[in-house]
């Protein structure tokens, strides 16, 4: 009980000093004399405390699948045409993730197999995963995406989406956004300082897939059934009006190199100027040269923005999109086009935004509760246990510092529930001292001498302290594993608090008590 080796005493003192030092960043700015290698980390404030937006996005993977199957249908058509094989009923079956067809001539089986095998190798190159399975039985031919290929594809789609969202948000001027994948098909976006994420919502909610397609001037606009090889799309500014365009995409937005918003010198209206890369520029030149005098539709996410008539071949690879844009919407469209199209639509399934005033209020309320609760516990311990209560109180203050230090070094995020966690930890922390003091008191009543009573009290209380803390720890580890982000903050503070409590309430208080006993040698313990 009394004996603490010099090394042990120093180690305990060092832990306490380190705790104070590492928790200082939360209280003061970095002093100049500190060596540069010394960590100076603060606890991060959660969005509920500093204000900001939390968005949970869900990827609509079925759209990716459908798109992949449709493009596979196109590629199969070309491959079959290239090998001059006759077939019927070429179609995509999204339920089975396959594309199938019937050969006109069952004896073409081996030839079809050879032609499609080449296609498989080609498709394989576009993603990392197992290859398509090709099945030929008699006249029936099918190409199936295996399950693992879908998983790989989904993973790839999420990663792509994260990159694109990152670019879009960076371009919008929001500072320190955090964008991370969650689970199989969700993305968490955290935007500190953004309390009204309306603009971000629009930036994220747009797929921004732009295409240039020729307008089919021969189609009757009123005809509900589009001619073969056409699709009927609504106008963006006038959804009642439809335009029939050729399904074949003349130039894809993926070939855009740059896009900038500016005002048109003649009309003074906001427009978006774009430049295409060399592939896109060549395609654009070919199409515009061959179709002078015909309208050419600019399509964004299935809506026709405009369909200007080609006056002369455009060979420079640059063009202009005009519509009824404001400065903001033109800038945003340019940003979306620069950042690239999302592989699939994303929907916002959860949103939480907190304004800075509310966050500041929450911090004030939390800090006030923390301060009042802390003082109440200190006063209680002092009146209930006297001197030993004060020892416990010193440990409690140290506990607060060390907890803060650990949370800072971990780079943990302090949320509102986390603040409640700190307060409750402080309330529970003195439990160990209550157990010890009660035990010591009993030993004194049982007639032991002061030193023997202290020794027996500490020794016997340990088992109980461990048992009771392990159960609490278990409950909160579970909460951490299964909880959502704000609740995790709470679980982390409690778990860290339990560990620091075990140190301060037992080791530190024991050291203080032994020092006190050695210097005073009291005839009776103040219990």
């Amino acid at each position: 009980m009394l004996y603490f080796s010099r090394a042990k005493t120093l180690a305990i003192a060092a832990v306490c000093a380190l705790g104070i030092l590492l928790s200082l960043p939360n209280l003061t700015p970095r002093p100049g004399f500190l060596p540069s290698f010394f960590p100076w980390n603060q606890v991060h404030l959660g969005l509920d405390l500093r204000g900001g937006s939390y968005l949970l996005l869900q990827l609509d993977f079925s759209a990716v699948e459908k798109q992949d199957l449709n493009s596979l249908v196109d590629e199969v058509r070309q491959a079959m045409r290239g090998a001059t094989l006759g077939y019927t009923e070429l179609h995509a079956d999204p339920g089975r993730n396959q594309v199938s067809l019937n050969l006109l001539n069952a004896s073409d089986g081996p030839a079809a197999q050879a032609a499609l095998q080449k296609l498989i190798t080609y498709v394989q190159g576009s993603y990392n995963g197992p290859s398509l399975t090709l099945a030929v039985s008699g006249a029936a031919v099918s190409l199936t995406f295996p399950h693992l290929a879908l998983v790989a594809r989904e993973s790839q789609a999420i990663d792509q989406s994260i990159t694109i969202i990152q670019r879009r948000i960076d371009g919008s001027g929001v500072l320190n956004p955090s964008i991370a994948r969650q689970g199989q098909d969700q993305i968490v976006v955290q935007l500190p300082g953004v309390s009204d994420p309306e603009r971000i919502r629009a930036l994220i909610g747009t797929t921004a897939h732009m295409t240039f397609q020729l307008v089919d001037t021969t189609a009757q606009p009123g005809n509900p059934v589009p001619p073969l090889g056409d699709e009927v799309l609504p106008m963006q500014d006038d959804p009642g009006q439809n335009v029939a365009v050729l399904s074949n995409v003349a130039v894809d937005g993926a070939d855009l190199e740059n896009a900038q918003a500016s005002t048109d010198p003649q009309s003074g209206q906001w427009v978006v100027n774009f430049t295409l890369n060399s592939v896109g520029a060549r395609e654009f030149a070919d199409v515009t040269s061959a179709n002078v005098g015909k309208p050419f539709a600019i399509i964004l996410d299935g809506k026709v923005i405009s369909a200007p008539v080609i006056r002369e071949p455009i060979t420079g690879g640059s063009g202009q999109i005009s519509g009824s844009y404001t400065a903001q919407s033109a800038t945003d469209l340019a940003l979306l086009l620069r950042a690239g199209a999302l592989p699939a639509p994303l929907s916002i399934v959860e949103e939480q935004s907190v304004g800075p005033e509310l966050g500041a209020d929450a911090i004030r309320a939390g800090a006030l509760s923390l301060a009042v609760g802390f003082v109440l516990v200190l006063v209680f311990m002092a009146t209930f246990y006297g001197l030993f209560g004060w020892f416990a109180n010193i440990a409690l203050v140290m506990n607060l510092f060390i907890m803060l230090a650990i949370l800072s070094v971990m780079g943990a995020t302090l949320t509102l529930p986390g603040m409640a966690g700190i307060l409750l930890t402080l309330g529970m922390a003195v439990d160990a001292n209550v157990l010890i003091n009660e035990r010591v008191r009993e030993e004194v009543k049982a007639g032991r001498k002061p030193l023997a009573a202290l020794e027996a009290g500490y020794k016997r209380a340990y088992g109980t302290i461990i048992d009771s803390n392990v159960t609490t720890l278990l409950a909160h580890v579970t909460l951490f594993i299964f909880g959502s982000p704000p609740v995790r903050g709470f679980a982390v503070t409690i778990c860290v608090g339990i560990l620091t409590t075990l140190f301060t309430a037992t080791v530190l208080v024991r050291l203080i008590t032994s020092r006190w006993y050695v210097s005073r040698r009291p005839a009776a313990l103040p219990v």
Partner: protein
Amino acid sequence: MFMRPMFRFVPDGTKIRFMKGRFAGLIVSFILSTASIALFFKPGLNLGLDFRGGVVLQIQTPQKADFSVLRAALASAGLADAGLQSFGSGAGTGVLISLESRANAAETQTAISEVETALHQAAPGATILSTQAIGASVSQQLFSQGLEALGLSFVMILCYIWFRFEWQFAVGAVATLLLDTTKTIGFMVITRIPFDLVTIAAILTVIGYSTNDKVVVYDRMRENLRKYKSMPLRALIDQSINETLNRTLGTSGTVFLAALPLALFGGTALSGFAWIMLFGIVVGTSSSIFIAAPILLFLGEHRLRRGAAAVKVQK
């Protein structure tokens, strides 16, 4: 000053015969828990946004908010289902606008924009303090996650106590925890504190705290079983409770004092959490004495102590 203890909850040598009240304790607890379960089914918990899905906007208007004007503006924007409620203290400038869960994410986003537009017309100068929107699929996911966490922590506590004590202790503790939890849920139904992720955390904390309390009392019982080999179990349980009474009340007191300011000044976000804690502390402390101990007495009367032959009870 403050060098010596200034007060005790109970004087030394207190000998309250708690086990005399074992039937009363169990019956009261049983009635309260049954009533809580009935309340759980009707009227049911006030599900928070996390688990219900939907949209809640917290707004602050420059002057006292005129609900009829706001309601009319929202209704004309096609949001007749919007619920209005004032929050915060003082001038009645804080308003909560809540909407039912929408069919899909796009409609939810539209609804938020519509609220914002309607607000700018009906109450110019109003600021939106916070927006929360949770889709139906996510709320389902959060709900099952929350219940999973709750269930798992029960199992983990059961295993730990089983591992450390005899099985009678583990069964007693978990049965008591179930009774405590049902009462906490009944409390939430009556007070209409919303049931969400934060309050699940509160319930788990209450469970953790309550277990802690039971472990301490059980620990003493186990020790006394070894110490007084011939004392009848009933007297032994009484003595153990009496010996740990100051500790039980002392720790409950500090946790209570720590949670009290949170309930009073913690703001809307934390006061629900804190009230559950306060309720849980009172229930958890009394259940250690009046429920966990009697259950142990019933389960252990013939096993933990078979008269004088029960010497080899504990390792």
